[in-house]
Every structure is written in structure tokens, then in C-alpha cells.
């Protein structure tokens, strides 16, 4: 079974994100970037399925700027067999919308013919939570989102999902799309010799133009602003004052 894992290069989760002075987005130049943490979980799951002998090949694809190659090398060091970079732009500030990404991925799926796509449930930059679902729709495949457990079972995948009030398990006929939640696994630390070996593998490169996909943006960003600063708290002198404030000012009683 072949597994395709789409990954996105995003601002590293340790970086304090700053809004660009003109409000057109957040600062992306000279900022540490790394693989979207949910995608790391997706790749880890795929590699584990391969190590268990369930999957035979793990292919990782990313769409974006040439610098994405760094992220793909990390993917190779984590255990991906092959990686594909779709050159979509040279502008690090240009974000490609989920719909376009889903259409591009559908083309890659046509070419690669994986039985399973495992994607992160969302990228931590825009928190769209849409690509996996749109891809499933574009392919006409079943989808299991927010996976906290994944098991392959005779031509199907069992996906345990974290939903309000407990866990739900779906059985999806393969091929299918699964998106990962935080508790699916703990991605491995990359071993140093694997980093060295990954440098010698090639990254397949495709031009977006060659895929014939309309990736024109449909969304317009009106403004980007910092979250409002937290106001200082108030000290109350008595329980009565607290109750009165909760009633009259906060309106929660």
C-alpha cells in the first residue's frame, strides 16, 4: 500500500509571530520555518505503518516556494521514501488557498495512485482546517478527520475520531483521506545519521504550470492585526462586590 502525505512549511511553533507593519499579513522573511506539527504527526503515522509492514511506500509532497526543500529533507530523514516539490511561487509571503492545494494534490494523487492520504487536520499558520476535506471531495473518496487512532483492516481504514462526548470510530473503504489530530502519535526525533543520508536523496520537482490547475486566489485578506492586549485584572474588596460586578458588569450571573 502506498501512502501520500502532504506537508506544509509554516512558521516554527516556537516563534513569536509578528504582524507586518502594513497589516498585509504576518512577518515571514527571516523567521524560522519548519514542518507543520500536524503534518509531522501524519508523516510519523505513515512511517509507522511502513515499519509495521502495512504500507510499502511513503511519498511526501509539498507545494510552495523553493525553500520547502528544507522541509522535504526533514521528511526524508524522518523516513519518507520519496518527496515531491510542486513549485507554486517564489514569494515566501504568498499563501496558496486550501481549494487550490486540494486541486493540486488531486493531480498528484492521479499520478501517484496512493491507497491512503494522511494529512494534518490543519496548518498552524492559518488554521483553515479545510484541505483534507476538500481533497476527499475532489477525489470522491471517504474522509476520516481528527484521527486519534488509525488502523488498516482488509481494504479499509478504521479511524478513531475525537468528537464531543467521546470517541467515534469510522470504517472507510480504501482509498481514503485521513486527517490527524494531536494525540495520534508522538513524532520521532530525527536521528543524525538519517539527516546525513537524506541529503543524498533527490527531491522530485514539478512546476505548478505543468499540472494545469487554476490556483487563482478566491479570498482577499482585508487586514491582519495583533490580538488585543489582555487588560489588567481588578481587585475586589469583598464577596458582595464580586457578586455585584459579576451580575452588573460581566453579566454572567
Amino acid at each position, binding site marked *: 500500500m502506498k501512502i501520500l502525505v502532504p506537508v506544509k512549511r509554516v512558521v516554527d511553533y516556537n516563534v513569536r509571530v509578528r504582524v507586518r507593519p502594513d497589516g498585509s499579513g504576518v512577518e515571514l522573511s527571516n523567521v524560522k520555518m519548519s514542518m507543520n506539527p500536524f503534518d509531522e504527526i501524519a508523516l510519523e503515522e505513515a512511517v509507522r505503518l511502513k515499519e509495521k509492514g502495512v504500507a510499502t511506500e511513503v511519498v511526501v509532497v509539498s507545494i510552495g516556494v523553493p525553500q520547502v526543500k*528544507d522541509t522535504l*529533507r526533514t521528511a526524508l530523514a524522518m523516513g519518507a521514501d520519496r518527496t515531491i516539490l510542486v513549485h507554486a511561487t517564489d514569494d515566501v509571503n504568498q499563501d496558496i488557498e486550501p481549494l487550490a492545494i486540494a486541486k493540486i494534490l488531486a493531480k498528484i494523487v492521479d499520478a501517484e495512485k496512493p491507497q491512503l492520504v494522511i494529512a494534518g487536520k490543519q496548518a498552524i499558520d492559518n488554521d483553515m482546517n479545510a484541505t483534507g476535506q476538500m481533497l476527499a471531495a475532489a477525489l470522491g473518496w471517504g474522509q476520516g478527520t481528527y484521527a486519534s487512532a488509525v488502523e488498516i483492516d482488509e481494504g479499509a481504514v478504521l479511524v478513531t475520531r475525537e468528537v464531543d462526548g467521546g470517541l467515534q470510530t469510522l470504517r472507510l473503504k480504501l482509498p481514503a483521506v485521513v486527517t490527524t489530530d494531536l494525540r495520534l502519535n508522538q513524532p520521532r526525533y530525527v536521528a*543524525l545519521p538519517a539527516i546525513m543520508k537524506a541529503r543524498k536523496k533527490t527531491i522530485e520537482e514539478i512546476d505548478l504550470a505543468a499540472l494545469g490547475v487554476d490556483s487563482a486566489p478566491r479570498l482577499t485578506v482585508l487586514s491582519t492585526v495583533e490580538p488585543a492586549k489582555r487588560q489588567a485584572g481588578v481587585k475586589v474588596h469583598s464577596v458582595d462586590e464580586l457578586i455585584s460586578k459579576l451580575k452588573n458588569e460581566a453579566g454572567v450571573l
Partner: protein
Amino acid sequence: MFLNETQEEVRSTTRSFVNDVVRPAAEALDREERFPAEIYDEMGKLGLFGIAVPEELGGPGFDTLTYAVVMEELSRGYACVADQCGLVELISTLLVRHGTPEQRKMLPDVMAMKRKVAYCITEPEAGTDVSGIRTTAVRDGDGWVLNGGKIWIHNAPVADTGFVLARTDKEAGNRGMSIFIVDLHAKGVERGPKEHKMGQRASQVGALDFQDVRLGPDALLGEMNRGFHMMLSVLDKGRVGIAALAVGIAQAGLEAAVDYAGTRKQFCKHISEFQGVQWLLADMAKDIEAARLLVYSAAMKIDRGLDATRACSMAKCFAGDIAVARTADAVQVFGGSGYIRGFEVERLYRDAKITQIYEGTNQIQRMIIARELLRKGASA
């Protein structure tokens, strides 16, 4: 900025391991003076021992700069863990350079920490002046008989294999010492008790005593009577490693101090708003950055095959000195809390001190810098 993509990736993977596994364990390891076998086991699996061992011998084959980056990151979590990495690096470098194919067969076990090693130079009468060693190896048939004693040897209480500098020619001074690979479980080897130290308390340090220890013909590492020179040949790398370790300790102190200054309030303000505190933080940051750049420059000189002696001594000396001075500043930013066990900066200050002493004291580093200046001229 100075690192390429591979070095950046090594740094970030080491950093996440350190943040998750090493730094949270440091306080307890210091308190219990415990050998962290479980951490070393995991580090072995991640390839964090024997960083420069070439790929054909089973290592990752990284350069000295990458090694320095790993040392700083490990030390940011806990200096003892970095010191273990440095020890394995020296031993594996010696094995790669001078070992016979048979001797190199131990490399995979050394790099997995299944075989713990010790580097045994110092003796009661021979510290800075290594030529004063009294341990002897005397020819006996096709092997040798080893007699003598070593002190303050890292890993001595737990090690399986010692790399022991011994005198093989009484008359020949520095040209009369050799390095032997000694099975520390053999008959005639006695281990002294574990020393209780000021800092780096999870490192197991102690004495080794050799009484008529029989060594086979394959115990000699490299050439006979060239031990002192082999030791010198890895000194540059050792110094870069300890310099990076010192930077890591200081960096951890800076991070802790910046965090604390932004949360502790006095006079209704965060103490970070007081210029007196700001200047402490600024001086810490600039010295640490300067030390890091000295480390990078020394490592790059080694990697490019340039004369690195002066650069390595400058890096080791400066980084050790500022590690002590700037972790003291970190304690200052914390006020009384910084003096209390359990606060990271209290440990960092204790852990820093030894970086001015081992791998050649900072007096000796200054001596070397001056000697190089006077011999080769002052130009950079």
C-alpha cells in the same frame, strides 16, 4: 546565519530532544548525582555520540562545527550530558585516526553507550603538566604490564574501557608515553569511590588504580611512544567542544533570566523595566554571542585544515570565563531565589566553574594564546 541547512537541522532536532528529555531531567540528576543511562541510551539511538565518525564506520560523519552546535544544545539542557558527548567524541576520534581495524570494531558499542569509555590522563602529581605521569607500561612477552593510578577520571566508576596514557620510556620525556586500551573489568584494576563535586554532579568522576594489569599485544593504540602527541592532536577539538559546552550553560542562564525578569514584579513593575536589570541581561547576551562566534570560528578553522590552536584556546578560555561570570549574573537577576537549590540558575552557576579548569585550565589557555602570538605574530 553561520550554519548551513544541515547544521540548522541538526541543531533543531537536538534542541527538541533536549527541551523534551534533557532539560526537564537536569534538576533531579544534579540532586541525585545519578548517571542518566536512559538518556544516553536514547542519545545513542539518535546518533548523538561520535558525531564525526565517518559514515563507512557507522557514524553520521559530521564536521567540527556541527559537533560544536550539538555540544551547545546538549549543554543548554544539561552540561553533564554534553560532557559525555564530548568524551565519546574524543575517544572515537582517536579510534578513527589511530585504531587498527580490530580496535575500531568497538566503535558501534561506544557510540551506542553499550560500552562506556574513560579518558585517563590526570594523576595526583600530573595535572596541567602531563609529562609528570608516573603510570608505567612495561614490556612483558608480546604485551605489557600496567602499574599506576589516575584521578578525577570522568566515567571511572562506571566505565568498561579506559584509554590510558602511560610511560613506556623513562628517559624520553614527551616522546616516551603511549596510549593503551584497557579493559577496566580486568584483574588488577581498582576503582576509587565516586567524587562528590561542586557542579556537573551527574558526571561520575573518580580514581582508577592499576596493579600489574596485563595488557595483550592489541592493547596499544597507534604508535608506541607517540601517546602524548596523539593526545595533543585531539586537544583542539576537545577545546572547541568544552567552549561550546560553556556557551550552552550561559545560554540556558540567559533564557532563564530573561523569562524571570519579565514575570517578577517589584515596586509594581516587572524587574525587566529597571535599567539595572536590563544592563545585566544585555551584558550576558553580548558575551554569550561573542563566545559562540569564537567557537564557530575555531571549529571552522579546524574544518578547513587551518592552524586552529590559537582560535581554540581563545574560544575555550573566553567561553569558560564568561560562562562563570554570566551565570553569576543570572543568579543576580533571580535575587535570593537564584541562590536556592532547585532553581536552574543556581545549578548553572555551579556547573559553569569547571569549564575554566578541565580540558586545560584557563591559565594554560592564556599561556598558549600568548605563545602563539609571540611565535607566529599578532595578525589574525
